[in-house]
């Protein structure tokens, strides 16, 4: 068994070395295909990141009336906290709101003077609510649209953002649909490219396969070298494409840091998903090359 495996591996590397042009073309096509897939993947990640960042910035502020007491605010806080859609609630006391206002208008003496003339703290407490998805805010507002709470809340800051949120939601949905469609299209194209590349490689060697069969080679001795070559082509093309991708990401990352202030970079993303990304690509390419070579060789092995 060991001798047979060693011979199959030897035949595979002999074939690779003596068909350099064909080997180069096969790896070249596989690398191109992998680069395309990774580019699509990166665009999808960047889009999700951008949409996520915009969503992150959306929240709703509930401004309570000045006479609202802390118990009322705590009750609304508790009520909203019971919704699974609510991710986070920040409470600002009357004092916090006043301080924040004063800080904001420190340079404007007229505003501060007007505040003094009012005497005391004219602001009520504020709740800043954040939900999982922008469309969840509608549910929150519906829940608060009861006289018991409406009498406590003076204003909601979200009203003006509603149209913007809907637009973002529409864009997100379209991007997701487009991404899925493109991924499906690329998947089909990739399969056809790999299948044809391997088929052409085997077709050019059909005479040799026939001769091997006629001198008594078993199917294992004929298929084996192509299996080893498939593993080699896959490993080499994934390694080359990974190298090219990381090189490109290094050039792209400084620009991403400007766009995403949260420090998001594609290099970090690839690093944290390296096994999933390249493992899945290796598995899929290997599976495709092995299936393609088996299908392409079936006819030749009947001799």
């Amino acid at each position, binding site marked *: 068994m060991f*001798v*047979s495996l060693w*011979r199959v591996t030897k035949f595979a590397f*002999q*074939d690779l070395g*003596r*068909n350099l042009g064909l080997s180069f073309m096969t790896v070249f096509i596989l690398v191109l295909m992998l680069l395309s897939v990774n580019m699509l993947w990166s665009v999808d990640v960047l889009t999700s990141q951008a949409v996520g960042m915009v969503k992150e910035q959306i929240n709703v502020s509930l401004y309570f009336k000045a006479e609202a007491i802390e118990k009322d605010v705590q009750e609304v806080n508790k009520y909203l906290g019971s919704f699974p859609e609510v991710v986070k609630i920040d409470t600002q006391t009357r004092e916090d709101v006043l301080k924040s206002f004063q800080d904001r208008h420190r340079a404007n003496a007229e505003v501060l003077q007007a505040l003094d003339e009012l005497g005391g703290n004219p602001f009520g407490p504020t709740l800043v609510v954040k939900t999982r998805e922008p469309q969840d805010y509608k549910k929150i507002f519906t829940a608060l649209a009861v006289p018991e709470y409406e009498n406590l809340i003076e204003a909601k800051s979200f009203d003006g953002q509603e149209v913007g949120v809907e637009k973002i939601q529409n864009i997100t949905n379209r991007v997701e649909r487009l991404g899925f469609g493109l991924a499906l299209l690329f998947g089909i194209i990739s399969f056809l490219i790999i299948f044809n590349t391997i088929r052409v490689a085997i077709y050019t060697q059909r005479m*040799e396969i*026939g*001769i*091997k*069969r*006629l*001198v*008594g*080679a*078993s*199917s294992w*001795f004929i298929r084996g070298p192509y299996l080893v070559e498939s593993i080699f082509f896959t490993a080499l093309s994934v390694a080359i494409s990974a190298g090219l991708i990381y090189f490109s990401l290094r050039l792209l990352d400084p620009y991403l840091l400007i766009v995403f202030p949260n420090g998001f970079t594609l290099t970090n993303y690839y690093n944290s998903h390296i096994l999933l990304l390249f493992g899945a690509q290796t598995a899929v390419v290997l599976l495709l090359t092995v299936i393609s070579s088996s299908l392409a060789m079936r006819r030749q092995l*009947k*001799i």
Partner: protein
Amino acid sequence: MIKLEGVTKIYSQTSVGLRDINLEIGAGEFVSIVGQSGTGKTTLVKILIAEERPTRGRVNIGGWDITGISSDDIPYLRRQIGVIFQDFKLLPKKTVYENVSFAMEVAGEPGGRIDKVVPQVLGVVGLGDKAGRYPRQLSGGEQQRVAIARSLVHRPKIIIADEPTGNLDALNSVEIIEILRKINEFGTTVLLATHNREIVNNLRRRVITLRGGEIVADDREGKYRL
């Protein structure tokens, strides 16, 4: 050694390869199968190496009924029969040495034995000094000698040669037939399919004549009749 009983090969309603062939070839015989192109010589060779299956009849080689041989057993059959083709059928990307050793490697022969036998058989066919060359660097006659060396490595009891001189000039043809004759002298059964009149007449051995897929003559010390 080789026994065919009522073997018929029908490709389609209008194309019949062989018709009711009954044939027995003993161990150590040198038999020429003659006939014009399309008379069934190659079909007969293909049936003997299980490249084709007979439509009817039985085929027995060395006591092994190969009529319904499974595809898994075909490699074992082919390792016991040396086959030589008109177009040599050498692996173009392998050297002379590798072409010959390949037949042994796929049969699982140990490396030490391969290292010993391959130079020996290359010496027998006079190519000991060209082991490192590729087939494209050899003449037609030399390529056919590589094919003969490859067919000999398993020390087969039977050698089947299908038009081995078809692509060779007269001088190389004589050399190839001489090698086959020597192999036969060591006890190997040789089956030579050819339409070369001169070669058959010079051999003065058994001649089986095919016409339209049927045996029309079987002479112990025959001549080319067609």
